């Protein structure tokens, strides 16, 4: 994976725009020039809810351009609700950029991005980078229903070929992104972010067709910075992302636990043992 030199720090950002892009989905644009400049595709921040009464929460950096960095998130619980109530002019402190993102420098020319739901937030920078490198980028983008396929046009405008799916058939193909991928010509490489069950089926598909896949995993985080070991995923010890750590003495096991927040969040599908 793209191992990144760490430019992480605390950024005191200011909200410049808050928009409800769909029911329960909020786009928060921040004035954060240094964050925007330092962020690489697939990286995230830990956003600190201003009340100081809840743990910081992980959110992907959606846009990063000039002095603007943005967050795109589903309002599902206390912390995302608090962040969704911020107004232009309000301050928001974030830690970042964090994690090892997508490796966009691979040689593959014909790539597919698979995004499920809010996983779309993790792949815009990735799509932009791949397109800038002259690759053919197909975006397989799925959601529960048409309203939740937010910002699809944005990807099309950037130059992605769009293949949309909805669980209820209200837009695009009726089914899941992996169903759409299965009936399309296989790409040379997959980049994916979405709910864990979707990533598992992406991994299965990638394995069957022998297509290398980079998966951005999601998990409940504690610290988000590698300190608490609360966010691990089983990984083959042979992975370059395996923490330099001796194995527990379990006969025949070559599995180590890597931190999603630190060694990830992006892993090669074939190296996961989940």
């Amino acid at each position, binding site marked *: 994976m793209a191992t990144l030199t760490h430019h992480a720090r605390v950024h005191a950002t200011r909200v410049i725009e808050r928009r409800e892009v769909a029911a329960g989905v909020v786009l928060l644009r921040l004035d954060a020039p240094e964050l925007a400049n330092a962020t690489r595709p697939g990286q995230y921040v830990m956003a600190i809810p201003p009340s100081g009464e809840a743990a910081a929460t992980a959110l992907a950096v959606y846009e990063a351009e000039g002095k603007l960095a943005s967050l795109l998130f589903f309002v599902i619980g206390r912390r995302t609700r608090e962040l969704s109530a911020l107004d232009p002019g309000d301050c928001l402190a974030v830690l970042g950029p964090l994690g090892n993102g997508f490796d966009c420098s691979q040689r593959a020319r014909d790539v597919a991005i698979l995004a499920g739901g809010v996983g779309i937030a993790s792949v815009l920078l990735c799509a932009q980078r791949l397109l800038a490198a002259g690759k053919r980028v197909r975006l397989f983008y799925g959601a529960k229903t048409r309203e939740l396929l937010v910002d699809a046009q944005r990807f099309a405008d950037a130059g992605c070929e769009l293949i949309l799916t909805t669980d209820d058939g209200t837009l695009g193909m009726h089914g899941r992104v992996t169903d759409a991928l299965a009936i399309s010509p296989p790409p040379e490489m997959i980049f994916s972010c979405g709910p864990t069950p979707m990533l598992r089926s992406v991994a299965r598909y990638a394995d069957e067709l022998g297509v290398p896949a980079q998966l951005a995993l999601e998990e409940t985080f*504690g610290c988000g910075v590698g300190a608490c070991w609360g966010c691990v995923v089983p990984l083959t010890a042979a992975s370059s992302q395996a923490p330099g750590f*001796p194995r527990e003495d379990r006969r025949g096991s070559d599995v180590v636990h890597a931190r999603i927040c630190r060694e990830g969040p992006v892993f090669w599908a074939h190296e996961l043992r989940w």
Partner: protein
Amino acid sequence: MVIVRPSLAVRLGALELAYPTLMGSGCYGSGEEYAPFADLSKVGAIVLKSVTRAPRLGNSMPRLVHTPAGMLNAIGLQNPGIDWYLEHEVHKFAQRPCKVIGSVAGFSVDDYAYVCERLAARDEIAAVELNVSCPNVESEGETFGCDPSLTGAVVRAARATTEKPLIVKLSPNVTDITAVAREAERAGADALAVINTVRGMAIDVDRWKPRLGNITGGLSGPAIRPIAVLAVYEVARAVKIPIVGQGGIETLSDALEFFLAGAAAISIGTANFTDPRIPERIVAELDAYLLERHLASLSSIIGKANVAFSTPHEYEGDEG
């Protein structure tokens, strides 16, 4: 007029700290993880993640659940084991701008003594904390820290291996924490850390299953603060050695509760997940608090809400 800045320095036995704030074991990694976000030179000491004799893969996922005013964790002591740790990690601690305290966990008395001896032999380690909230696999799996005599045995064995300051971290999951505290003091502890996490559980009502891979976990954060304040209050009446108070400290006022209950220092764990700037903020606010009240040092407030320090007082048990 000369303004004399108050001193925030504290002593835990022979361990001298410039600030009264420790970063809780398991919550701060080895400090390196938080270095981009916090000024470690304003930290009293970092307590490292607990280390064991053999490497441990730790528990299966999920290991964390956010709960009202806190979180449950069941990490399962994932760590590389003492050999690897000494070879690859410990030398890095010399570069930390604050003191570093090792934390030792074990599954037998001998485990504790072995790891303690090897860790304490290193100059980078200023003191050793014993995490006695582990099961004794040589017996029926009872938790060391829940049994005064087992705690005593661990502390005596560790004491025999090192002159370094020894902090014993007490579990709140006991009927009488003072009995364990007294035994730890008798066995040679230099200080007590009060408290470790409180046992708890959360259930996913959609899936009808426990939320943690390990089923049970330890609760931390503001949810346990009143439990921790009481424990510090009671332990302060029972022992003479200093106490490191902890459990849900997030603000100056929280910190003051612990000092007033009898803690000589405090430890901050889960609050770092809320905002890594919290420890530095508490230190600055403590400084301002003492200055405003013309208090020369923290010792002027330690235990001041603890009636046992002024009048011997038998209290009647809980209200209501």
